[in-house]
């Protein structure tokens, strides 16, 4: 790459950072350089300090908090601490993960004006600049709309636009696509890529899902669990040579790399290491691979045959929030031991549907059956014993002061005797790797631990139905794998499982049936493989084909074209 010849923009030298002076640093002795126009991808397991690093890079930390830092960060040769307040922020911009908490004004126009006012742009120039940037990110129509009414994808575009108004030389992306539906996610990444080509800023990307960014990355930096730099190098070297090391740290490998390594048992030719979907397809074509096999791992059918009774059904159910009708005439049926996914674009009503199924939200009309008994005939307590619900934010479900009490809470409520409680809690603690934290405060656990605990609290007794609202959201590779493992174990035991998700690869790998919610009703209900054959629905619901299917389709096209060309050559 020619990037190496560009000037240094930012250099980090022996930098350490921690929140508490009496505890260990969470980032330890980091040294690296970002050159002009370079794109760097920062990876690492949850809790390795990636976000903290991004805030240190643009000078918000350690000044904004009582943190303590050692070492230096230089921007164009000047230490960050020598810049005046606000000055460095004009050179280095950040787009954050959560679209809900990045704005301080009500409308798009005013939010953009806020940025321009901060840098003292003369008033006469503001209108023109606002219109230009709105055009660049494709939000001209939304200029006067309140931000809170926009979809998640558009909110992130507003955040991007307002940062770009500063004309930064370096743009930091702190997982800006994590909350978006698959299509919006892809769109935002493409937009960032084209803006980068046009405006020539450097990019520093923090991500868990790597594939879509891979083709634009010059260099990868991997942080270890302890906050050291684990690896640094070109994406080819880092991902292809050090795959085992990364996996051991709990980092997601790009699926492109995983596919190549899987197909060739870890042995790859140094000269041809694909990093984009097109190059992967070319590689597969050249090496004679025919397809990526489906990795569906559903339980053996003989074991399930005798269990396939219906446990839950919705008939002509209409759901509303206040006066606003969200879903109309829904029909849904769920059998014992089944794993189904609910998908659809942001705001389609997926969570509303889940709440209708859980009995938390009463429908306007229609009837619901749980274990062949009407919902209305169930007492609250009995219903909660046979049905669990795991919320998106695990903190919402934590109600006691220790992990032990949290697990024992349901059993105490149901009058289980003390010995039995002791025994069950110990078993749950072991199963969910929480034994060491038995007496910790639930709020003090890490993100992944909180998630595990919130699932564990639902399992005092084996429930017949388990509902999950985006269970893998914001989790690293290891937590995701652990969680899906657990979910499958319940499935084997005959529990029916429903989850809401944006992750189509998850749907492809685990689900037997998928419901697509859109336009206030179910627009598709069937096997995932059938859904992948319906591009109209996939597009309308802002979904995206899973990686496996995308590659296989591309490969087929390539082969067909090759065959046609060969055919033409003969004649």
């Amino acid at each position, binding site marked *: 790459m020619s990037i190496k010849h560009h000037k240094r923009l930012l250099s980090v030298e022996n930098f350490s950072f921690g929140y508490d002076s009496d505890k260990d640093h969470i980032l330890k002795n980091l040294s690296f350089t970002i050159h002009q126009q370079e794109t760097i991808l920062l990876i690492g397991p949850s809790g390795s300090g990636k976000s903290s690093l991004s*805030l240190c890079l*643009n000078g*918000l930390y350690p000044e*904004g908090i009582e943190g303590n830092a050692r070492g230096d960060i230089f921007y164009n040769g000047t230490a960050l601490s020598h810049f005046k*307040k*606000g000055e460095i*922020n*004009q050179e280095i*911009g*950040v787009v*954050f993960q*959560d679209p*809900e*908490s*990045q*704005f*301080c*004004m*009500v409308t798009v126009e*005013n939010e953009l*004006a*806020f*940025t*321009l*006012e*901060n*840098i*003292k*742009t*003369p*008033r006469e120039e*503001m209108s023109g600049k606002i219109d230009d940037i709105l055009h660049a990110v494709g939000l001209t129509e939304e200029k006067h709309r309140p931000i*809170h009414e926009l979809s998640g994808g558009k909110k992130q575009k507003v*955040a991007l636009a*307002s*940062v770009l108004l*500063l004309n930064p030389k370096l743009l930091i992306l702190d997982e800006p696509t994590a909350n978006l539906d698959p299509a919006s996610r892809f769109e935002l990444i493409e937009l960032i890529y084209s803006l980068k080509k046009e405006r020539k800023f450097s990019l520093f990307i923090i991500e868990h899902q790597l594939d879509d960014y891979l083709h634009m990355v010059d260099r990868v930096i991997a942080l270890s669990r302890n906050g050291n730099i684990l690896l640094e190098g070109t994406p080819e070297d880092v991902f292809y040579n050090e795959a085992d090391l990364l996996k051991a740290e709990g980092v997601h490998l790009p699926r492109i790399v995983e596919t190549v390594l899987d197909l060739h048992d870890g042995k790859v030719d140094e000269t041809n290491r694909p990093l984009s979907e097109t190059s992967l397809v070319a590689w597969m074509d050249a090496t004679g691979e025919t397809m990526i096999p489906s990795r569906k791992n559903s339980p053996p059918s003989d074991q399930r045959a005798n269990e396939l009774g219906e446990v839950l059904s919705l008939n002509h159910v209409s759901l509303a929030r206040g006066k606003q009708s969200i879903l109309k005439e829904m029909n849904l049926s769920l059998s014992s031991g089944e794993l189904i996914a609910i998908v659809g674009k942001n705001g389609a009503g997926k969570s509303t549907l889940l*709440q209708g199924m*859980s009995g*938390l939200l009463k429908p306007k009309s229609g009837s619901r059956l749980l274990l062949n008994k009407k919902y209305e005939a169930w007492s*609250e*307590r009995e219903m*909660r014993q046979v049905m*669990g*619900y795991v*919320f998106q*934010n695990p*903190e*919402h*479900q*934590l*109600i006691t002061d220790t992990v032990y009490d949290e697990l024992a*809470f*349901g059993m105490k*409520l*149901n009058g289980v005797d003390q010995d039995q409680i002791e025994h069950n809690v110990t078993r749950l603690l072991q199963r969910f790797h929480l034994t060491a934290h038995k007496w910790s405060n639930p*709020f003090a656990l890490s993100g992944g631990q909180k998630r595990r605990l919130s699932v564990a*609290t*639902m399992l005092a007794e084996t429930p017949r139905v388990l509902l999950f609202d985006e269970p893998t959201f914001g989790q690293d590779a290891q937590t995701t794998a652990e969680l899906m493992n657990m979910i499958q174990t319940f499935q084997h035991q005959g529990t029916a499982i429903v989850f809401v998700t944006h992750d189509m690869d998850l749907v492809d790998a685990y689900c037997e049936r998928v419901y697509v919610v859109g336009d206030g009703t179910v627009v598709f209900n069937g096997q995932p493989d059938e859904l992948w054959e319906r591009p109209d629905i996939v597009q309308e619901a802002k979904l995206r084909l899973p990686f496996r299917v995308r590659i296989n389709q591309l490969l087929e096209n390539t082969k067909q074209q090759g065959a046609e060309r060969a055919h033409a050559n003969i004649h």
Partner: protein
Amino acid sequence: MLTSINPTMKAFAVLIPALLLAVTYDPLTPSIYLVFTILVTFLFSKVAFKRWLVIFSPFLLLAVSFAWMTMLHPSEAFSGGDVLFSIWSFQVTSESFWAGISLGLRSLSFAALSLLFILTTDSTKFMLSLMQQCKLPPKLTFGILAGYRFLPTFRYELQVLRQAHRIRGVGRARGMKERLHQFRRYAIPLLANAIRKAERVALAMESKGFTGEPNRTHYHEMTIHKRDWVFVSVFFVMFFVSVFLSYQLGFLNIFGKQF
């Protein structure tokens, strides 16, 4: 139109007469001002009568109860006059009766004035105007604006929290002790989230170059026009007109002193 009046000037036009009204103890002065305020509200803005009434009615109830309390428990200064009627052991004299009516009418005037301001003022513009006209520090004004955006989120989160607890089998709280305990359970996650969100917004604002220093340019220049001065003057003049009218009719009473 009321919406186009400079918010800071409008606040003055509403606040000063309200304070002055507080010292008029007769019933006529506040009634004249009340009628004037209501007339201005409906003649110069697009506020729907029904919506106004819905918000105004609780104040009506409040005013009636104020008046009633004053009639039954008058201070020494207003207990003179003939006894008009008595309830149980309470005797309502003519002076205490009129003092009560006056207090009720004053409360209603306050309410009407506040509504006139609230229903015709955009919160963003009010803050911008406070910053530009009253030189309030930007840290404070943008802080309030950012916080204002969180209010609906808060309500939504409380609702989710209730549902999440219901799933865990936590029933409705009975009795004081349980309720206190429940409040604590809700408060911790709500506060934890609020602090985290506040932190995030602050970081986002700073990363967009916000430093809090007052020296900044303004996209919406909030200016004071002639019509703003006229508006304020009308509200001031109208106060003195109503005082003069009550004086002429022999009602005027300031701080308990009859004129």
